[in-house]
């Protein structure tokens, strides 16, 4: 059945890829480690390493083959595994760190740049294993290159575990200290969640949840550049028209994710999980969510009007994307990782974007306070209070929120730090110097909100 595409359609697709940074941000292969238990550390670690290598060895070649066939760049190939605290009955912190080393080696062996799943889910409380794993995080992240860690400290159904929030404040500080020689980069690989999704393909928060199959392919799309270009072509359109054009663009972008996800699942012979409808920026010029908001008419991202513009963008992306994919999941929404978005970094430098405004923005988009560099002298209690605020937004609004902040040792507000690669560069943000210690150290649990009672 021959049919021909319009020249304009073909050129539009090619322009999106070549000039507007349309790409597949990540293909993430989720691997269950449920069958990797054992009676001693050696056995467990060996099983984990072998399983990751066995299931993951074809990921990179298959992704490269798809890239060639379809001409769409696939930026990252990654692996997520079952939260380690659920499967590995290791005896002490040192064994968990050794396990992280094994994950790191396996990731290197199969050629992926990040592996997620050094994870504990502690929104209601700690098991013995959770506690050991969390304590091992600074060691794991400072001694390995590719391992990513996440801890879920709150959920709409369980409330906020403030004891866990306090501990994570300390863990983040300790991780920053241990990686001080590398701009505290360890913290860029650590996410603290509320309502963590089980099928998120994006690092550092990816893990293969308890309800997931043996293995699954999850795909994250990108495309701020494509949306930006579309909006720039309509300088005088009203906002309804802008929303419509974002929807259409998001549809096209997400279709690429659907195509690549299905091809990857078929070729890897594992289930197709989800497409994550995220608008994920990169440090490249023009691939910025901040620039989209500015193209809508804001002088600078973070100024008045930003939350409204972002809410509309986020909603339109979801509406367009939801039509384009049969299975949508993960984080699905516009990302605002500050250091990874050149426009956001400029807005911080210009003084328009503050930590408090970012917090407001996270109530209407995905995901949270992400890739924010803080002064090195920020206290563990202040970080805990920031985590608690962000978790509260997620808990009350039934959405995922996360905190990935980097208290960069030895730096003060206004200094610039380079994280390199996709992690970008950042200007250290200031924060309100009022003490929350008296509140956070009370500990205990903030009860689940009334929204949880929906049965």
């Amino acid at each position, binding site marked *: 059945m*021959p049919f021909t*595409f319009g020249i304009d359609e*073909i050129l539009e697709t090619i322009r999106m890829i070549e000039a507007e940074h349309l790409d597949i941000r990540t293909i993430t292969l989720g691997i269950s480690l449920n069958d990797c238990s054992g009676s001693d550390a050696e056995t467990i670690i060996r099983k984990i390493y072998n399983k990751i290598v066995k299931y993951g060895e074809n990921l990179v070649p298959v992704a490269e083959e798809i890239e*060639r066939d379809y001409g769409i760049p696939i930026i990252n190939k990654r692996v997520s595994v079952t939260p380690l605290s659920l499967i590995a009955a290791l005896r002490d912190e040192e064994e968990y760190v050794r396990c992280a080393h094994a994950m790191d080696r396996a990731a290197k062996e199969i050629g992926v740049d990040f592996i997620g799943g050094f994870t504990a889910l502690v929104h209601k409380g700690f098991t013995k294993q959770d506690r050991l794993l969390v304590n091992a995080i600074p060691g794991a992240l400072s001694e390995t290159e590719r391992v990513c860690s996440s801890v879920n400290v709150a959920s709409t159904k369980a409330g906020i575990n403030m004891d866990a929030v306090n501990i994570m404040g300390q863990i983040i500080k300790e991780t920053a200290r241990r990686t001080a020689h590398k701009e505290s980069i360890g913290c860029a690989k650590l996410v603290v969640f509320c309502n963590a999704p089980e099928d998120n393909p994006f690092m550092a928060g990816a893990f293969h949840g308890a309800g997931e199959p043996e293995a699954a392919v999850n795909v994250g799309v990108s495309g701020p550049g494509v949306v930006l270009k579309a909006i720039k072509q309509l300088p005088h359109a009203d906002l309804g028209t802008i929303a419509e054009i974002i929807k259409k663009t998001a549809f096209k972008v997400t279709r690429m994710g659907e195509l690549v996800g299905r091809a990857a699942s078929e070729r890897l012979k594992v289930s197709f999980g989800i497409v994550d409808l995220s608008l994920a920026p990169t440090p490249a010029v023009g691939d910025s969510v901040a620039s989209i908001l500015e193209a809508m008419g804001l002088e600078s991202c973070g100024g008045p009007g930003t939350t409204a513009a972002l809410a509309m963008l986020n909603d339109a992306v979801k509406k367009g994307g939801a039509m384009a994919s049969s299975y949508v999941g993960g984080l699905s929404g516009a990302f605002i990782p500050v250091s990874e978005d050149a426009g956001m970094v400029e807005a911080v430098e210009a003084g328009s974007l503050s930590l408090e405004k970012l917090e407001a923005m996270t109530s209407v988009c995905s995901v949270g306070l992400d890739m924010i560099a803080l002064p090195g002298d920020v206290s563990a209690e202040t970080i805990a209070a920031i985590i608690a605020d962000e978790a509260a937004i997620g808990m009350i609004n039934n959405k995922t929120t996360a905190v990935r902040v980097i208290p960069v040792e030895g730096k003060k507000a206004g200094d610039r730090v380079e994280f390199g690669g996709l992690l970008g560069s950042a200007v250290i943000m200031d924060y309100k110097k009022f003490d929350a210690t008296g509140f956070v150290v009370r500990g205990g649990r903030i009860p689940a909100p009334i929204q949880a009672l929906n049965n």
Partner: protein
Amino acid sequence: MKSNRIVITVVGIDKVGIIAGVTSVLAKYNANIVDISQTIMQEFFTMIMIVDIAQCTVDFSELKQLLDQCAQELQVKITAQHEDVFRYMHRI
């Protein structure tokens, strides 16, 4: 890949021999041109071909390399992608 059709686009400054250059590569390796359209857009020569590579004597990635060489010789830009990319994006 269920179908064996690819979309080849050629964009560059117009000059003698672009079509001949590209099509001779396809003919040499037995790739069948199903549809072809050519126009001048904003002074640029723009050609789009739908090509069936089911009987092609080299595989797709090799064909892409051959087309890349051809693009360098002709000083044009050639892309080759499986047609599903366009079908997924523009057809429901």
